């Protein structure tokens, strides 16, 4: 029998520019380890999805959260996504299903087969849950994923109805109260179910404390994005994607707030001293519609090697800061904050007769002085892909800068060819450079 050949691993993660972001993985790992420790000590663990509005409730009930979507991205970045996707597909799930879902389902499938979580899995794997809490916000796979999860884990599945984005063209002032009423009702129902399954009452004073904590963390997260408008850009997209888990998932944690304070201080110092990501920032790029290719975050370093910096991203941002401290019911406070952030820019979008996502991108191009937009068409995420051709057309009406789309996936590297992506990026950057030169000659810059 031939000797087994060693597989040469090619680095796909990005080299980071900011010192704080280089430490992000340590805090992510800590959150996963805390869940594993909770399991060992007999304390409950919950698997959550983003936008469930349940983190504060979990913390108030001493339930340790793990975000399964975050695990999907982390697994892909650590080159462990395909193993888990293949385990999922081997059980009959389609390759077209959301990559995050396939990683989560594959994890549970292998966990069932092995009888344990293998510590060699990314971040040591996810600790077994006592509860899984999904929600309806975002996309359809989020409903079905946790439903399918119960093939492997017979634990209670809660699924609050979270409707948090306004329809196009409606006046936000007319809608906020209705949306908040729905969310608060859903949160009380979730509270009742959690109390039933965990056999104890939820301490609403603690929920209020964690709601305040989340607000502080998220406001700082937004502030870090705001300061990135500076030229040269102090922080590239790949760095913010590493820090994102603390502003998008683990927000009710003091460590997350402290992390963003440290990051903000570093960014402020970089801006003050004119420190950019690369010595000569020739082009500024907006990472537009579509989630990141977690399996190939080095794409951002590739851009930098060509003199281009991705200075801002449209995905996983907080969109604004707010203060909802006047609402005494912590659920209302959480709901108001969420609704206001998610729909920030809606009035401006209405004035443009556009959807809020596209409108935000138009604003980002202006605010962050971008010379080009890159959109990522995701094979396994139709929700963030449908409309990209239309959004590119719309953006071209507001700006002459080029918009490029490329196809791969959020998790599944089998869908992508890095050589082909780079080929496309080379041409795009040439077009962006020519257009920037034209605008400079025309006195538009």
């Amino acid at each position, binding site marked *: 029998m031939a000797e087994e050949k060693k597989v040469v691993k090619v680095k796909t993660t990005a080299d980071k520019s900011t010192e704080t972001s280089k430490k992000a993985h340590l805090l992510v790992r800590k959150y996963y380890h805390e869940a594993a420790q909770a399991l060992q000590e007999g304390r409950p663990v919950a698997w959550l999805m983003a936008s469930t509005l349940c983190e504060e409730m979990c913390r108030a009930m001493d339930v340790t959260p793990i975000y399964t979507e975050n695990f999907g991205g982390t697994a892909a970045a650590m080159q462990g996504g395909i193993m888990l996707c293949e385990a999922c597909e081997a059980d009959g799930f389609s390759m077209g299903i959301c990559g995050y879902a396939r990683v989560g389902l594959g994890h549970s499938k292998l966990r069932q087969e092995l009888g344990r979580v293998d510590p060699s899995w990314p971040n040591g794997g996810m600790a077994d849950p006592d509860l899984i809490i999904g929600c309806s916000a975002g996309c359809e796979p989020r409903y079905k994923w946790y439903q399918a999860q119960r093939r492997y884990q017979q634990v209670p599945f809660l699924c609050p109805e979270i409707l948090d984005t306004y329809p196009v063209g409606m006046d936000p002032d007319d809608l906020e109260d209705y949306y908040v009423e729905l969310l608060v009702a859903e949160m009380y129902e979730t509270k009742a179910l959690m109390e039933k399954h965990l056999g104890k009452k939820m301490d609403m004073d603690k929920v209020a404390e964690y709601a305040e904590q989340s607000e502080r963390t998220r406001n700082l997260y937004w502030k870090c994005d705001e300061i990135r408008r500076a030229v040269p850009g102090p922080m590239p997209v790949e760095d913010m994607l590493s820090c994102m888990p603390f502003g998008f998932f683990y927000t009710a944690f003091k460590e997350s707030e402290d992390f963003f304070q440290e990051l903000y201080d570093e960014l402020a110092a970089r801006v003050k001293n004119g420190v950019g990501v690369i010595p000569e920032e020739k082009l500024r790029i907006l990472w537009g519609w579509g989630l990141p290719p977690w399996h190939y975050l080095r794409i951002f370093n590739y851009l930098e090697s060509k003199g281009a910096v991705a200075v801002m991203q449209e995905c996983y941002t907080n969109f604004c800061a707010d203060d909802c401290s006047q609402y005494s019911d912590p659920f209302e406070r959480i709901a108001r904050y969420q609704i206001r952030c998610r729909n920030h820019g809606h009035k401006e979008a209405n004035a443009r007769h556009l959807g809020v996502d596209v409108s935000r991108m138009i604003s980002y191009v202006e605010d962050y002085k971008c010379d080009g937009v890159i959109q990522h068409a995701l094979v396994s995420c139709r929700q963030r892909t449908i409309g990209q051709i239309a959004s590119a057309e719309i953006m071209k009406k507001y700006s002459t800068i080029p918009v490029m789309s490329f196809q791969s996936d959020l998790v599944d590297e089998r869908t992508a060819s890095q050589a*082909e992506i780079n*080929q496309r990026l080379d*041409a795009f950057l*040439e077009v962006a450079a*020519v257009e920037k030169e034209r605008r400079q000659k025309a006195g538009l810059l």
Partner: protein
Amino acid sequence: MLTGGIDIGSTMTKAVVMRDGEIAGSEITVTGAEHRRTAHLVMAAVLERVGLKLDDLDFIVGTGYGRLNIPFADRQITEITCHARGIGSLFPQAQTVIEIGGQDCKCIRVRDGKVTDFAMNEKCAAGTGRFLQIAADMMELTLDKMNELALNAREMVPISNYCAIFAQQEIISDLSLDIPADVILAGLFDSFARRLLKMAASLKVVREVVLTGGGSKHRALRAAVENILGYPVRLPAEPLLTGAYGAALLAAEQVQRAGRAGGTRKFAEVSVG
């Protein structure tokens, strides 16, 4: 002024030498596995043909997939920019360029020889020259014969353009049903043309439309494209050379920008604009 353009494509390598804005000579060869060796050979061949040495050239631009493997090139520029520049020079009215290469195809919107937008096929052989080569091999036909049959067909069957392998299976199935080869081939070229135009549609196809790249030499493909568009498209005299020609033109612009000529190629930092 003497400049060179060299285009290492996935299938063919092309070189052009220009003297004072005119093509002095060109060469086309198979790329093979050793890009550097091929680059040297093709450039040596064209230089010999025009009686020059490498050092006589003021600037050389490399393009194509293998552009990073041309040790003597002063600058690398993507084939999208090079094709646009080449076509812009040959057809100043061109607004849409469809380049059909060996392993990919591209639609390029151009204005004054500069790229304003572009689209490329995704990771699939459908819509590339390889697709037609697979079909020709399978049907044991030369590419010329394949075109002749398709052009003379009076009917066609629909063939999938989603995937080259699916198309191959359909052809096998159609052959087993005794569907004549010319009818299958007419469907194949129609399918190919629709795939190209679907990709191009994301940028809006605006007349004049120019086809280029090795795949555009298929007469039946050109006919199918024209049939779908409803108007004639343009074709360079040698479609394989437009990338290398554009590269040589861009090389000349680099020299002009630097404001000097004379055989020392030291202007690699000049911008593309």
